[in-house]
């Protein structure tokens, strides 16, 4: 199906998933204005959210099934397989977040169904980011997502740490947005357009100017903040630590994946002709992997450890981005699927153990969990091994794909850094397994209240099954990722006449 963005109907079709999501968000907003008192209202809101995510996924599937493409070059929004697959990852992450939010909100007495509205809006923003093929659309999506997540981070408003997290995230996020906007402005100044494809065409013809390079650097800094790459990661541990755990899980997975999707599209379609970004990202990836893993090694709190580990994983994803090419994009998608599952699974188990935000759960507090809650411990062990990149789990497959992308791009040293830092990561993932399986319970009733309700259990089960399944039989996932990864960089067959006039300096 080919869409012509100058026709109204086609334009609406190209943003159908976002429209469906927006409609649901408005319905949900009306609903919570009317019913927001009891836990039952909260449940209904949660179910409506799941319905919203499911119907959006179906809309995406429909567009994907019909091979939707957008005619012409300079559209604001892309319609390619990369967008659909990235959207599915985001929706999947959001759905798992909803499933672990049910019991969490009730247990922590966060009886405000607006939570789900914000979650939907954040997901919507993430989808817009993954879809945008224009700097302004990407920025729009980023802000929509970020503002919703700022509020979500401070959702547990009775706890000081949650408020601190929200404020910190807001201040630094706003700062990062400033960088990003300034970068957009400079790029616009250099190329007279904000459209990614047109920027790419400009660059391939006219080469890069100093202004463009500074703009690119600022864009990378802005995204560096959003994905929590070292040295722009300072906010991440505190924010992840303070936010309610399901929100942390959402931030670590969907928010990060959306920022990476936008970054990939930006670099591959707009800056393919500027090789400088490979070098910048090379260093960014290297220090993020080294830094994230080394910082995580020193953590005793489970939640902070997971926060730093998500920094480390941002480094692995940066390796995929740096490698570039269709391989890099496919590797990103595969890893994003694996990472979303294993990270959410780990946070789900953590939320079962903790109380009051889980920031005080030490790794050693899990001691003896395997004896009392064997399935929960098993799920956590699978997630940890997958995060470690152990064969038989999806985490290994993802890492393997990234390594393939890196080595085939000639980045052997980066690949070596990746595996060496993975060895370091064994130093903090294994103690979790050790505590659960090899240490005795500190007191008899240490794990009595470690419980998940049935929906959270369903989420954890789905995660474990998915991790093991993709770990052993990833063929379908590869096919999907391969076509999607290739779709992001269709060779541009433009002529100069399609371009806007070059600005006169």
């Amino acid at each position, binding site marked *: 199906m080919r869409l012509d963005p100058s026709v109204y109907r086609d334009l609406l079709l190209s943003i159908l998933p976002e429209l469906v999501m927006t409609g649901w968000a408005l319905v949900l907003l009306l609903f919570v204005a009317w019913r927001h008192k009891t836990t039952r209202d909260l449940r209904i809101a949660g179910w409506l959210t799941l319905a919203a995510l499911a119907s959006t996924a179906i809309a995406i599937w429909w567009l994907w099934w019909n091979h939707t493409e957008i005619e012409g070059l300079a559209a604001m929004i892309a319609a390619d397989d990369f967008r659909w697959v990235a959207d599915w990852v985001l929706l999947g992450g959001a759905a798992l977040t909803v499933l672990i939010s049910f019991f969490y909100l009730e247990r922590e007495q966060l009886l405000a169904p607006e939570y789900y509205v914000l979650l939907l809006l954040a997901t919507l923003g993430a989808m817009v980011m993954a879809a945008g093929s224009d700097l302004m659309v990407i920025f729009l999506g980023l802000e929509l997502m970020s503002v919703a997540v700022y509020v979500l981070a401070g959702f547990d408003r009775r706890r000081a740490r949650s408020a601190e997290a929200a404020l910190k995230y807001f201040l630094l996020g706003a700062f990062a947005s400033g960088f990003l906007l300034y970068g957009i402005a400079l790029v616009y100044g250099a190329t007279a357009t904000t459209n990614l494809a047109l920027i790419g065409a400009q660059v391939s013809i006219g080469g890069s100017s100093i202004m463009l390079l500074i703009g690119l650097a600022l864009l990378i800094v802005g995204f560096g903040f959003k994905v929590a790459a070292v040295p722009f990661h300072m906010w991440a541990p505190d924010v992840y630590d303070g936010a309610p755990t399901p929100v942390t899980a959402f931030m670590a997975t969907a928010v990060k994946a959306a920022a990476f999707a936008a970054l990939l599209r930006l670099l591959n379609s707009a800056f393919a002709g500027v090789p400088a970004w490979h070098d910048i990202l090379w260093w960014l990836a290297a220090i993020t992997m080294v830094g994230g893993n080394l910082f995580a090694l020193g953590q005793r709190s489970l939640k902070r450890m997971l926060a730093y580990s998500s920094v480390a994983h941002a480094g692995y994803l940066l390796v995929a981005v740096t490698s570039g090419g269709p391989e890099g994009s496919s590797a990103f998608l595969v890893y994003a699927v694996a990472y979303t599952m294993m990270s959410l699974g780990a946070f789900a188990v953590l939320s079962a153990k903790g109380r009051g935000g889980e920031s005080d759960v030490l790794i050693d507090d899990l001691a003896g969990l395997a004896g009392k809650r064997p399935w929960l411990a098993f799920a956590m062990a699978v997630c940890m*091994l997958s995060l470690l990149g*152990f*064969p*038989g789990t999806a985490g290994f497959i993802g890492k*393997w794909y990234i*390594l*393939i992308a890196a*080595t*085939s791009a000639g980045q*052997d040293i980066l*690949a*070596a850094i990746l*595996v*060496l830092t*993975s*060895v370091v990561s*064994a*130093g903090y993932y*294994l*103690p979790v397994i*050790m505590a659960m*399986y*090899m*240490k005795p319970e500190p007191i008899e009733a240490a794990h009595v209240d470690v419980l998940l309700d049935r929906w959270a259990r369903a989420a954890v089960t789905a995660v474990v099954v998915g991790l093991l399944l993709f770990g052993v039989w*990833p*063929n379908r996932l*590869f*096919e999907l990722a*391969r076509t999607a990864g290739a779709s992001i960089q269709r060779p541009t067959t433009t002529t100069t006449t399609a371009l806007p006039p070059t600005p006169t300096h």
Partner: protein
Amino acid sequence: MSYGPWVITLLLTWPLLSGLIVLFVPTRLAKQVALAASLIEFAISVPLWWAFVPSGGMQFMVDLPWIPAWGIHYTVGLDGISLFLVLLTTFLMPLSVLGSWSYITKRENGFYALLLVLTTGMIGVFVSLDLFLFYVMWEVMLIPMYFIIGVWGGENRLYAAIKFFIYTFFGSLLMLVAILVLYLHTGRATGIYSFSYAHLLTQIGTLGPAAWWLFAAFFLAFAIKVPLFPLHTWLPDAHVEAPTAGSVILAGILLKMGTYGFLRFAVPFFPGVALNQVVQLVIVGLALIGIIYGGLVAMVQPDFKKLIAYSSVAHLGFVVLGIWALTLQSVQGALLVMINHGISTGALFFLVGMIYERRHSRLIAAYGGLARVVPLFSAILTVVSLSSIALPGTNGFVGEFLVLLGSFRTYPVITALATTGVIVAAMYLLTALQRVIYNPLTHHENEKLTDLSARELAVLVPLLVCILWLGIYPKPFLRRMEPSARQLIEQVRPGGTQGEPPFVTANEGGGSQQ
């Protein structure tokens, strides 16, 4: 159905399946079920001995696509090198289950299930003929061992377990990158992207200076596993803390994966580097240091288990020496030492475990004069120790003699020095033997020790039979190894086996009966 290619797949899936079953049977039945499962596994593998045709190629091959997008196949097969390691694995597993019968008292289901899963991993390493599959198996067997040490180990088990894990993980991940580079290199050169062992081996072409890095990555992974001095420090910790079955499997099979890796991958893939004068000298030198240093350190150990652990470093030094000497005799000798070490050291660990169960001490000084109290135990310990020392007539002699004989032509000086390792072995083991069995009975706790039970004899007798069989008549083993060893040497050094006598007619077995 005739005995055919399905057998390897069955050997791989059966332990996994039965491991799952063991996990869910009632606890009191766990060990019985595990014993039955491992005996069935052994029974499946035994006919391989006869079905195997002594020739150079791979047999019982299965080749199915697994992840076709990357040229990853499920390819398994056996040759004269891996056959015995597979048989050794299936042979030691029932004994390990039986040896843990009363030693393991908590979480029995988990323990026996892990032992069975471990079997799959170990056999998988030896039969994989696809480098991706090999890597997966190589890592997969890490987890059960990690749990076995960490959950059922001694006092300091957490430290030992994580050290074991991280050492191995470190080496194997570098190997992973090397495998990938190899895959992309041959893929670009030939247009066929495949992880198949045969494809990579024949199409590897000229690698240029990259060969050095790739060899280093493979070598490091295997050298850690062997373990080659100075990468051996994880071994004493892991051995001492692991439960008896864990130590037996660790010494008997896991260490052999490193030397197997040398033979199968590191040397044939990069003959240019492996046969470089300096590289050879460094590696053989490290092996020699391992032989002497391992023996000397073993001599001063107060802990019997640690003594055996260090003796492993020495024995594996002989294997590395034999592999790098690369003559028909030395390679076959190395293969025999691999098997012998699995049997003798396995038996030693079993014996230490049995006495530990009675006395709860592994210190040599805690014993003395046991010959009068537990004569059967003492007799068996003596025989096993002598075989570990390589006394003529036992298995140990045949292997080490062949290694020394074969290596002498390549490295006369180093081999002469390595021979002193045999003397050192006699010094530490005989001293320990004397202090445990013969000296006066000074500890009164030892007066009430009970001798070996029928179950314990059932563990030890098969090992004793092997010790004598291999010591007196190793020909059936050598006959099956020879074509594969010859092929390997020819592959690495064309014409390397010319002028060497075909072994099986040589009189080395009888020569030991002087």
